[in-house]
């Protein structure tokens, strides 16, 4: 994807997030090189999950921006008011055209039809403003409007994530959970679904292929044959794996894992470490990890970044970070003088 090997996959510049008076993340500069496993550590309340949510498009940052694959994805919105032009201009132009056509032809039918088309144009543009499909985003770019990407835009761009507290679709099967994860890769829309039949089996074929792929993903994370279990009936460790499989559904380039080993016993933890290493080795994924378990962090990470009180206090290889006095201070407190 990236022509310049030196350019990082994800690049955060001076990202700041304030919640009222609380500065959760303060001017954090942060890069994730392509193909690396980067860990984000820090004491509780350091702003790790907030930074994570900003990268995933859930929060807009107060300041700063995040580039992914060399493209600016998340930042403060710019020139938002200019978008109103886009909402109303096509409808206005169509209405003017309809009026002209009515004047020229003198036919009421032409006038009425033109009016309907103008109203349709207005409604479509207003809806596009709400739903923000891809073409609308491109149009916005043309007139210099920037809107921060939403979570689903980030998934389409190639960032998958899991949640700190498991957020599976509890009452859907494991297979359906993964299929939802593959949503952005599938094309069949509601019209395809309606006309789907033996004569035009586009949706059926796609669903069949998707189900096969979902089974593969389940096998990859170590849940072969569990596709028809309800997500909530799976054991805790399996639910964590299922979340990873769901995030893998969209074929992400960057996988964000929020405490993937939280609450696991040592054996499960080492299995997850092996899984993470395998994802990178076999699929070439770049992985950003939030983790409290230092055994996991030190064994899989290429680089470790340490956040404390919203500020990035150290960055480097696991060994460098382990010896960094500021990190020791953040975790253990300053030595008594």
């Amino acid at each position: 994807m990236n022509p310049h090997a030196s350019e990082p996959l994800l690049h955060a510049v001076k990202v700041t997030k304030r919640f009222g008076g609380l500065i959760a993340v303060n001017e954090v500069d942060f890069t994730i090189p392509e193909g690396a496993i980067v860990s984000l550590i820090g004491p509780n309340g350091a702003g790790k999950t907030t930074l994570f949510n900003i990268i995933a498009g859930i929060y807009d940052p107060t300041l700063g921006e995040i580039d992914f694959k060399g493209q600016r994805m998340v930042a403060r919105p710019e020139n938002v008011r200019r978008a109103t032009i886009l909402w109303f201009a096509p409808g206005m132009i169509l209405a003017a055209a309809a009026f002209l056509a009515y004047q020229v032809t003198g036919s009421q039918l032409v006038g009425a039809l033109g009016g309907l088309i103008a109203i349709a144009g207005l409604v479509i543009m207003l809806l596009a403003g709400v739903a923000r499909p891809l073409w609308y985003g491109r149009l916005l770019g043309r007139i210099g409007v920037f809107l921060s990407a939403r979570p689903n835009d980030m998934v389409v761009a190639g960032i998958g994530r899991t949640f700190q507290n498991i957020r599976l679709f509890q009452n859907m099967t494991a297979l359906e959970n993964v299929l939802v994860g593959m949503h952005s890769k599938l094309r069949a829309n509601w019209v395809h679904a309606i006309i789907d039949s033996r004569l035009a089996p586009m949706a059926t074929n796609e669903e069949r292929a998707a189900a096969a792929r979902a089974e593969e993903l389940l096998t990859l994370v170590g849940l072969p044959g569990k596709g028809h279990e309800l997500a909530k009936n799976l054991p805790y460790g399996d639910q964590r794996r299922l979340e990873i499989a769901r995030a893998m559904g969209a074929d992400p380039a960057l996988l964000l894992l929020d405490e993937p080993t939280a609450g696991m016993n040592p054996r499960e933890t080492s299995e997850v470490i092996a899984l993470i290493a395998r994802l990178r080795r076999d699929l070439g994924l770049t992985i950003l990890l939030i983790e409290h378990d230092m055994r996991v962090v030190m064994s899989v990470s290429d680089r470790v970044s340490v956040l404390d009180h919203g500020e990035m206090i150290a960055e480097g290889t696991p060994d460098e970070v382990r010896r960094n006095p500021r990190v020791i201070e953040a975790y253990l407190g300053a030595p008594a003088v």
Partner: protein
Amino acid sequence: MTISAKDLLELLRYPAAAFVVALVYAPVREFLRRHRSTAIFLGVTAAASLLPFIVTLPVLNEFERQNVWLDGFSNAGVFVLLAVGLNIVVGLAGLLDLGYAAFFAIGAYTYAFGASPFSGNHFPFLLMVAAGAIVAATFGVLLGAPTLRLRGDYLAIVTLGFGEIVPIVFLNADQFTEGTNGIGGIYKPDLPLLESFSLLNPWPFYLVMALMIIVVLILVYKLERSRLGRSWMAVREDELAAAASGINTVVTKLLAFSLGASTSGFAGVFNAAKLTLVSPDQFLFTVSFTVLAAIVLGGMGNIWGVAMGAFILYTIQVVLLHELNTFFDNFHLPHPNFVEYQYLLFGLALVVMMLLRPEGLFPSQRRKRELHAAEELGDDAELPGADELGGVDPSSSEVRL
């Protein structure tokens, strides 16, 4: 009447019969499971062909003549369509919509504008069916767009308001709608093969209604099983996780609103053509409420369930309560007017349902598992605590019907 195990054993004494049943049952069941569209077609056709005969049987034929029954069934069909449409919004996408009657009204008035002496237009029925569905869908989207951030109770309140506004607009815009009187003398449908639509002959309406139900059921079934149906379910389960899985939740919810509304518009056109009159008082809150009660009673999320629920509820409302009155009158017993107390009875029925069988009379497999798994576990696994939301938007905690 129930069939006991003994009766079944009795049946087994006829080896030939048992053999045939065993031979046919499994393949037929398997065939119907695989070809659901065919199953829907066969099921509705069978029901529609049996009903006219059933009502001529003793007991039922004493209530009313066959024609009156069929007329009632066509009206019940309208409720079935409404319930199936509302089921998309409430049952599948989990958006509590209390103003559903508004789209019904919009569909009906669309037909009234398209085919009545009042407007001076007379467009063909089939064209108007499509137009009614499209106009209602457009209003569904227009209602949906500003309410996207709301969920649960708040969404219910806004949709309730919309449901109240629409009839009031039709009431007050009397220059265009004749206000309280409504638009009368609406043209009957003109369909090939079915010539004589009239008040005296209920058959054409009955057949058209059966056809419409088949079409809508098949379409909704296909939607439910599609990628879109899955994303509705995901949004219902956990909206934030759905967005983080790549679902455009805005589009998904708008499609639920508009497809649900279009079904309602469809029903509205039929209703207007059948009654030949539209007036604002046909679309009051009680309609929205009754349809919602029907899908809760029938089994939310299951197409067959909600269709049956609507049919049963309508039959109770229109036939049973009247007959109860007549019954008590015949024996000169003092009694309340049951028809007046229908909503009290519905309320009681809903409370009893929630206590005894919260998944409805004919639940979907999924909802059954959902509601009874918690029972088996014996804990409150269904209730996410505030701490589980961990660092993300607290407004996304789910409020589910």
